[in-house]
């Protein structure tokens, strides 16, 4: 993509390339400074949530839902999933990644094929159950919005729709996959899909 656009520019306006690139990286620097301000606020808040024990309470509250979705019995794995999901809910995707990786490792059964629980975790992450789109709110505020927080409700609505759709699709596909698989290998051979 980049190469093709440079080729394009070489042909149309070769003297603008460096100017465009430097200008863009200047924009990136400005954005990073703004993001730094946004993160300072939210990471400070998150630290407070953690230190006051609210984070754990939130995780505990969601225990029944997690149990239904992942069917994980190991409490340690569940704790990792819980931490991953609660960081996601607060809109801090960067903070949730390490936990997600650990949870995935723990869920791995070594068969080389993703289990339904793993796919479920991925999909819930990919549809980003964000209750507080903190970074976006911060960027809106620094761009001079008169009401930076007025996207909270629409975001919660949209994210609820996508996450529920994701969960339904995963459930549906896992059933479909299981049927296809057992049809191929016979009733006894469907070892791949251990967790339904």
């Amino acid at each position, binding site marked *: 993509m980049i190469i093709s656009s440079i080729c394009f520019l070489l042909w149309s306006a070769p003297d603008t390339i460096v100017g465009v690139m430097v200008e863009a990286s200047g*924009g990136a*620097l400005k954005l990073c400074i703004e993001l730094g301000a946004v993160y300072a606020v939210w990471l*400070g808040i*998150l630290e407070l949530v953690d230190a006051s024990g609210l984070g754990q309470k939130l995780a505990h509250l969601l225990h029944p839902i997690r149990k239904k979705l992942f069917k994980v019995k190991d409490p340690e794995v569940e704790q990792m999933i819980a931490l991953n999901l609660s960081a996601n809910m607060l*809109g801090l995707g960067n903070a949730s990644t390490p936990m997600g990786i650990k949870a995935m490792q723990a*869920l791995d059964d070594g068969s080389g094929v993703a289990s339904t629980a793993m796919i479920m975790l991925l999909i819930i992450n*990919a*549809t980003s159950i964000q209750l507080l789109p903190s*970074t976006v709110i911060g960027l809106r505020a620094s761009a001079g919005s008169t009401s930076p927080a007025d996207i909270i409700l629409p975001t919660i609505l949209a*994210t609820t729709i996508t996450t529920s759709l994701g969960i339904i699709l995963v459930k549906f596909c896992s059933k479909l996959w299981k049927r296809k698989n057992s049809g191929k290998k016979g009733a006894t051979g469907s070892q791949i899909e251990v967790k339904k």
Partner: protein
Amino acid sequence: MSAYILPVLFLLLFLYCHHKKVNTYDTFVKGAKKSIPLIVDIFPYIASIMIAVALLRASGVTDLLAKVFSPIFHALGIPTELIELVLLRPFTGAGSYGLLESVFLQYGPDSYISRCASVILGCSETIFYVATVYFSQTKVKKLLYAIPVALICATVGSIFACLICKVM
């Protein structure tokens, strides 16, 4: 209504911390300190994506893309101004914040377009990045239906985001 959510939540949090005898100031400082290493980490990614996008724009490739995709986006009810954002979102988180910023600058943060962009970003994730990183430490080679499902959800999310912004 939305405007009250954050201030009230913050107030409750501070009161709760006081109740739990947490040292509010020191704890906040400890968290805020993490923001500088974080932006140092993400700056190179944001810069390279923004440079790439600037080149694409200057060369007119985006106009071409916009022409190809605009009937589809039009049919789905997503503003055609957001084509780049929607197409890049599954690949790069930092880059899509860069695009969000440029949408804010171009259309003003309170415009319909910017609100749509905000909600789209809020209800989606960098699917390919997350999938790569999350599975990087496992032996899994086959993701089965994971990526298609994620992409379907992202598309539906973008459509609903624009619909919701029209109503609310």
